[in-house]
C-alpha cells in the first residue's frame, strides 16, 4: 500500500512535469504541439551529449538542454506556427511531420540504439519497504518546484499575467496593450525549456532512444484532454490521476496493461465530456 502511494506520487510528479509545457502552449496558442515529445528527446540527448560524451559537469548539461529546448520552441513558433496562422489542424499535422523529422535527425547524429543515462543524482533511499532512487525523488521535487514557480510566475509577474490574459482572450489582451505575438513567442520558448528539463528527468527514469518521444507525448495529451484546457492546478491533479492509475494497474492488474487504462481514459473522457473534467479554465 505504502509502495503504491510512494511510487504513485513519484511517477505523478514526473508526469506533471512532462505535461506542463504542453498545457502551456495549448492554453495560450490553442494549438496541439505534437512535436512536444521531441523537445523531451532533444533535451535528453543534449544532456547526454554534454555530460556523458563530453564529460562536462551535470549542471552545464541541464543548462545546455534548456537552451536547446528554448531554441527548438522559438524556431518552431517562428517557422511553423506563425506561417500556418495557428490553424489548429494544420499545426497538428505539421508538428507531427516535424516530430518524425527530428526523430530521424536524432538517429542520424546519435544512431539507432537506445542509450542508458547515468542517474543525475546517485543513491537510493529506503522508506517503508520501498526503495526510492534519489534520481526520481529529485525529479519529483524539481517538478513540484517548477510547477509552483510557474504558478507564481503566471499569477504575479507582468509577463506571466500577460500570458494568462492571452490565454483568456487574444483580442482583449491586444486591446490592453499586450503584444500577443511576443507573448506567444515567450510561451513557446518557455514550453521548450520545460519540455527539455522534463526530458532530462524522463530519460534518466527510462532510457534514451529515438522513439522515446511518443510515450511522453501521449501522457501530455492525456493530461490536457482529461484536465480540460489547461490550468496549472488541473494539470497537477490529472497527472496524479493518471500516474496513480498506472501504478495501481501495474501492481494490481498486469504490468502490460498500464498504458491501456490511460488510452481508455482519453477516449471515454473525450467522448463523454469533450471539455474535460475541469471544463475550460484559464491558465
Amino acid at each position, binding site marked *: 500500500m505504502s509502495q503504491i502511494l510512494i511510487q504513485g506520487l513519484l511517477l505523478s510528479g514526473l508526469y506533471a512535469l512532462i505535461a506542463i509545457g504542453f498545457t502551456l502552449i495549448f492554453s495560450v496558442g490553442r494549438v496541439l504541439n505534437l512535436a512536444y515529445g521531441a523537445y523531451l528527446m532533444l533535451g535528453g540527448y543534449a544532456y547526454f551529449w554534454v555530460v556523458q560524451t563530453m564529460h562536462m559537469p551535470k549542471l552545464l548539461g541541464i543548462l545546455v538542454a534548456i537552451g536547446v529546448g528554448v531554441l527548438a520552441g522559438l524556431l518552431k513558433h517562428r517557422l511553423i506556427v506563425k506561417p500556418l496562422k495557428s490553424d489548429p489542424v494544420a499545426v497538428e499535422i505539421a508538428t507531427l*511531420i516535424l516530430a518524425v523529422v527530428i*526523430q530521424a535527425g536524432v538517429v*542520424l547524429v546519435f544512431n539507432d540504439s537506445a542509450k542508458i543515462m547515468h542517474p543525475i543524482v546517485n543513491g537510493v533511499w529506503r522508506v517503508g519497504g520501498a526503495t526510492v532512487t534519489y534520481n526520481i525523488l529529485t525529479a519529483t521535487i524539481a517538478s513540484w518546484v517548477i510547477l509552483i514557480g510557474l504558478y507564481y510566475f503566471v499569477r504575479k509577474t507582468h509577463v506571466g499575467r500577460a500570458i494568462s490574459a492571452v490565454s483568456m482572450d487574444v483580442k482583449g489582451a491586444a486591446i490592453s496593450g499586450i503584444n500577443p505575438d511576443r507573448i506567444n513567442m515567450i510561451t513557446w520558448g518557455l514550453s521548450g525549456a520545460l519540455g527539455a528539463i522534463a526530458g532530462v528527468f524522463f530519460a534518466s527514469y527510462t532510457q534514451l532512444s529515438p522513439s522515446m518521444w511518443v510515450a511522453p507525448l*501521449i501522457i501530455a495529451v492525456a493530461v490536457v*484532454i482529461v484536465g480540460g484546457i489547461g490550468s496549472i492546478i488541473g494539470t497537477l491533479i490529472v497527472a496524479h490521476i493518471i500516474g496513480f492509475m498506472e501504478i495501481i494497474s501495474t501492481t494490481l492488474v498486469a504490468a502490460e*496493461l498500464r498504458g491501456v487504462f490511460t488510452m481508455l481514459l482519453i477516449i471515454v473522457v*473525450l467522448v463523454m465530456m469533450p471539455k474535460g473534467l475541469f471544463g475550460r479554465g484559464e491558465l
Partner: protein
Amino acid sequence: MSTQITWKHLALWALFLGGMALLPMLVGKGTLRTIIFANYLAIFAMSWDVLSGRTGYISFGHPFLIGIGAYTTAILSYRFDVPVGISIPVAVIVTMAAGTLFFLPALRIKGTYFALVTLAFMELMYQLVQVIRPDLTGGTRGISGVQTLTRGAVNGYYLSLALMGVIAISLWAMMKTRLGTALSAIGMNEEAVEGSGLNTTKLKLFAFMVGAGVAGIGGAFYVHYLGSIAPRALFDINFLFTIIVAALIGGASTIIGPMAGAFFLTFLLEYLRPFLPGAERYFIYGSIALILYMYEPKGLYEILRKARERLTGANA
C-alpha cells in the same frame, strides 16, 4: 468542379491503368516490388482521404483500421484455416464495424480533439494486441507464414494494381455524384450543409464506412501479400505519418492526389536509397514533406493546377 463524367475522363483512366499494366515488361522485379508497396500505400491514402480529406475530420488512427482488417484475416486464415475467400470479406466487414466505432466520437467532437481520440484508438490497439490473447495475435512478434494469394512479383503487382484501379475508379465515380459533393461540403462548412436540410450525421457515417471499408480491403490484401504481420509495423506513428503525408502531399480531396503522393513518396524513398542509406533518407523525406506542406497545404495537385493556370492564362 465539373460533375459530368465524360469519355475523356474514362479514356484518361484507361490510359493510366493500361500504362501501369505494361510496367512489368519494362522494369525489373525489384522496382516492381517497390511499385506494389506504392499501390497499397495509394489505397491507404485514398481511404484516409475519404474519411479525413473530404469531411475535414482528421484521423490519426488510420493504422488502427488497416490493422483490424489485416489482423482479422490473418487470424482467421492462419489460426482457424478459414479460406481466404471468406476471411477477407469478414475482415472488411469487421473493419467497417470498427469504422463505426470511430464515428461515435465524431458525433461530439471535431478538429484537433477528434484527431487525438483516433490517435488514442491506435495506441490502445497497439497495446491490446500484444497483451490480449497472444495465442491468437502472436503477441509482440505477430504472425508470420500467413497464406499469400499470389506468387512472384508480377502476379502480386497485377493484384495490387487491379485493387487500386477498382478502388480509385469507384471512389472517383462516387465523388462525382451529389453524395461526393455533399461530403466535400462538410469539410468546408458543416453547419451550412446541415442548414441546407441534409443529414450530416448520415453523410459522415457513410464517409466513415466507405473509408473504413477501403482501409479494410487494403489491409487484408496487404497482409496476404506480405505473408506476415506484426504490431510495431502496423500501429506505428511512422506508418500513420507515411499515409497522411502521401494523401496531403499529393493533394487531399482528390482521387489522383493521394495516388500521386503515394508514388512520389515511395520513389523518393527508393531513389534516396543508393545515396543515403539508413536514417538520413527519412530525415530528407520528412523535411521535403514538411516544406511542401508548409508551402502548399493542398499538395502537389494544387501546385500543378496553379502552374497550369499561369501557363494557359486561364481565369485565375
